[in-house]
């Protein structure tokens, strides 16, 4: 599914990603952890093809961004931590626009289900720029889950959402990967009693794969980063 090989990326003189390799299989939920500024968002942006990398290769389902950009973009959706929307369209019209653009015949039913699931149905006819951060993120999730790309990348999804919405999102993600898709998200937290299958620890520009166990403590892991620094 997602295959990142020997990825390098720098901002000016600062090397953010240094020879990063990541592999995620279908039906897997991966979690990207690391301190603020470790490069989590950068890695997700590179994986989504939003940032041009210095070196390295990124493929999704074997499709490379360098060789087949259009096909690659159909495979991936990234939900950034502060998604932007069109000023002139309401929440419903955003779903309508994307549904029609992707020729999803049952978009009205699916859009309604998603808005109900993420508790946005009462705001269906409202412009997203009037939404709170959490509501904007929910609408962005609705759009992503309407399109259902094979790879879904989420930047800090659990931060803006309340505890109930976090549980709803987690259960939606489980259903979503159950269909053969893959999810990679960056976060410092996960909903209570939930743990992703793969944890990727980004530290000093490199990724370390951690096998989650019952004893895994995210706070301790991030504290270790402090000690290293």
């Amino acid at each position, binding site marked *: 599914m997602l295959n990142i090989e020997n990825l390098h990326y720098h901002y000016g003189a600062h090397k953010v990603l240094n020879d990063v390799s990541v592999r995620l299989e279908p039906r897997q939920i991966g979690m990207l952890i690391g301190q603020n500024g470790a490069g989590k968002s950068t890695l997700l942006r590179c994986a*989504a*093809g*939003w940032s*041009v990398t210095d070196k390295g290769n990124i493929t999704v389902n074997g499709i490379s961004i*360098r060789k087949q*950009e*259009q096909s690659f*973009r*159909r495979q*991936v*959706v*990234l*939900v*950034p931590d502060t*998604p*932007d*929307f*069109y*000023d*002139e*369209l*309401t929440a419903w*019209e*955003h779903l*309508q*626009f*994307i549904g*029609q*653009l*992707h*020729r999803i015949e049952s978009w009205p039913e699916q859009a309604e289900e998603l808005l109900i699931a993420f508790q946005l149905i009462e705001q269906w*006819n409202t*412009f997203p*720029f*009037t939404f709170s951060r959490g509501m904007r993120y929910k609408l*962005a999730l609705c*759009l992503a889950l309407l*399109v259902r790309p094979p790879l879904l990348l989420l930047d800090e999804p659990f931060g803006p959402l309340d505890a109930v919405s976090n549980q709803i999102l987690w259960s939606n993600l489980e259903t979503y990967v159950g269909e053969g898709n893959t999810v990679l998200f960056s976060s410092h937290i996960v909903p209570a009693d939930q743990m992703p299958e793969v944890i990727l620890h980004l530290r000093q520009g490199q990724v370390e794969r951690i096998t989650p166990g019952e004893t895994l403590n995210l706070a301790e892991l991030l504290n270790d980063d402090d000690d290293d620094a």
Partner: protein
Amino acid sequence: MTMMRDLILLTRLEIKRIRRSSRYWLRLIGLDSMNQSRAVQIYVMLFWMGWIYTMWSYVLGQVLQASGSMHRADTDQLLPFIPYIVFGVQVYYLVQVLRDPPLKLASADLNYIATAPLSRGMITIVNFVVKLFIPALALSMIGAQAAMFFTWHADMIAAGLIGFKAFAVTFFLVYASGVLIGSIGVLKQNYTALRTRLMFWWVVPIVLAGAALIPQIVLLPGQAWVNLLGSTDDQAFAVLMGGLIIVMMIGFIVLIAAGNRLRMTKVIADSQMYARIQKLGAFGRVIAADVIARIRRQNILGRKRVIYKRMPTGLLGTSALIAQSITTLIRLSPAAIVRLFFSGGAFVSTVLFTVRLSGGISLPALLILYLVLLGLRPREIVQGFRAQLDQSYMRQYIPQTNMRLFIASAAVPFAITAAGMLIIVALQTWVDPITGTVFALAVLITLSLCLAIEMVQMKRMQLPKIAYEYSVLAAGIVIVLGGVFSGSLWGATSAAVIVIAILMTLLNESEAI
């Protein structure tokens, strides 16, 4: 006592703010008190003093020339209109304060001033004094020049003295009128009920009726200004100034009373948009005009209770993209459609005039045309495309290439612009309508594509960002050579078609995000 303490506190804060912003503006003109030696500072100051003196003398020279070229009888015929001009400016300001709440606070003030237990009246006064200063200064300078225009037939010293008096009178007249009229806006600002707010608009017809029924009172400010021109009596000037200062003081008292009634929650709500625009800085209105337009648009759309002009259902794929573009255009502003139509007419008129005035198809003509077109960025045609590119998050959902996205988002604005062009081309007799239409369309498509190319990334093609000026330069050379070698507009049009094909290929291969 408490109000005085508040006034001192707010004035100190305002002085600090003015000092800080002055430092910024002074640095902009090369005067940096922190990092420059005293000698350099004196040199820069002398330079700017000389520049201001030269500019003032130049304007004065123009006024003298204009005044000298007219008979006194002619200039005197203009004097009766002055009271109406002054009245017109006052009514204009009245309409402004009724349309738009006059008391607005910047973001820092919203956080600290609005929520502090300070006198609302004093906050209002300080806000008005600062806000009216620049308009008062500008109008006073215009007033002084106007006064000298009318009195130049007298000796130069007398005219200069009258100019000085007119400056002082105009300055205080602006403040006196500003605070009195502003008080009406401040009073209105407090009310939320639509009926009460609409009632305030009755002030406008009442004032207009007053001008017709009792002109000796309503037109008095302008008349006093006119009387000043014919008087060399210093006592009359002192009386006029005294009267204006008294009216201004009364205005301040009324403004304090109106300000003290203000509810700050209402002021904060009214100030949100203003504060966001203020945050963009001194040049925000120039360099971030699109951001300001977006803020204003959000403000208008956010207030709508009923959303009209829904996106049509049933359209799939690229048709949905065009439908979204139309919905955006209509919701953006119906005025945008009219603007696009007229800009088409203006565009083709410019092209035809330039070619005509330069003596037909020739190298100089096409070079002049190129220079003219360089300044004409078809922003409104490409606006939808730019909005799509700016929203990386939404852009990823659009599976079309940049070329198809450009066509879908620019098709409707382009069609409206083209309609405006066609009317002008059909009406003119200089060039064959068909040749003119095809050439103008080809040039407009070329310019729109050049602007679109400036917005996209082409890193994967190993190409840097291509600025509009460079692509227009390259396209211009090809089109000019095509026109010159063939000696006809058709040759230039054919060259433009080749350029369009190249630009479309580049756009098609550019990165979506």
